[in-house]
């Protein structure tokens, strides 16, 4: 066994300056690189919706982006929190419910203005069977990017860290998926987008303890 004094001398040979924002930067880099892979997958495999420039002037597109981006920002913040060996309470994470509740409000409004005979068609849209799985698939490269971020981190609640990493990956995957998906109903987004994001979070919680150990 190496002498502890020698170990300390060796470790102290390389003491680079560390930025205050090192954790946020590394998490951001992981998200960005993973997001770029997901973006390439959408543009080459799925294809960007041809009417994107028209859609970007409408309500539905921004309703979807507001939901997925606010969820993605909240989850990314939670990731930076759980990347540290922090003993603070996780109660603040309830704020992640706010985007979901706001979208549920939009849904109620939408249902009130649609005749009940059209509810089922609105709920299922044209792509309900594919949507959650595509969101989940696009989340995979982003989750891998976050795993890279975590290699220099020190999470102590591995299951929670895995869950929020999965949530962040799912929410940003859904954000990118919006460039392809032509669905316009809030009820569709609340159900099928959220399902894909939730599965990503669940898988993250499942494999986090194994992959985020240090």
């Amino acid at each position: 066994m190496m002498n502890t004094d020698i170990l300390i001398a060796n470790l102290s040979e390389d003491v680079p300056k560390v930025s205050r924002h090192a954790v946020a930067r590394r998490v951001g880099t992981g998200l960005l690189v993973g997001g770029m892979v997901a973006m390439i997958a959408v543009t080459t495999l799925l294809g960007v919706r041809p009417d994107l420039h028209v859609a970007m002037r409408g309500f539905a597109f921004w309703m979807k982006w507001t939901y997925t981006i606010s969820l993605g920002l909240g989850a990314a913040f939670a990731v930076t929190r759980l990347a540290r060996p922090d003993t603070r309470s996780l109660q603040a994470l309830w704020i992640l419910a706010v985007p979901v509740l706001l979208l549920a409000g939009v849904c109620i409004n939408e249902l009130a203005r649609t005749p009940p005979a059209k509810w089922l068609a609105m709920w299922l849209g044209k792509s309900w069977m594919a949507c959650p799985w595509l969101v989940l698939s696009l989340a995979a490269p982003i989750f891998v990017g976050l795993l890279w971020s975590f290699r220099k981190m020190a999470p102590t609640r591995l299951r929670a860290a895995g869950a929020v990493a999965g949530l962040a990956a799912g929410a940003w995957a859904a954000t990118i998926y919006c460039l392809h998906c032509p669905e316009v109903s809030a009820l569709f987004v609340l159900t099928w987008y959220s399902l894909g994001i939730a599965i990503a979070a669940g898988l993250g919680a499942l494999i986090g303890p194994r992959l985020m150990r240090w």
Partner: protein
Amino acid sequence: MARSEEQLKALMVRGLDGDSAAHAGLLRALVPLLQSFYRRRLRGESDVEDLVQETLIAIHTRRATYDRGRSFTAWFYAVARYRLIDHLRRQRTAVPIEDVESILVSEGFEDASNARMDVGGLLATLPPKQARSIRDTHLTGKTVAEAAASAGIGESDVKVSVHRGLKALAARVRSTRHDEY
């Protein structure tokens, strides 16, 4: 060489700013703290020095995760405790009882509430009189006399029910433990 939170934090912050002498001073000051932390929790084990060195390496390689605005010792002991838990997991030894509480907290509140539900589940497996006696005297905090009055039975009956019920529960918990490991 005992150090205060302020002194350790100052060394850490200077190390983060690139001062290698301060960083070395910090690591040296942490050695006795880690030795006593691990020695107290790994009674009679020879792994203390290994664990101290592993933790020094973790503190060095993951120093970016320290937030300058927060307590240094809280960060430091969170890292030390994680290394201890990981060490025990690898050794597959039982976790010392004194640490279960903090491990529960670090694993998230779900586990703590599961433990509470376990008690309810276990009590449900007992005869109603024993379950009620245990619940009254051990969970809701009634005296034996109050429990006897509310159940309409004698005081000695309550005492005997509690005794038999706890014995049965202990046997049951022991047998499920064997199943799990």
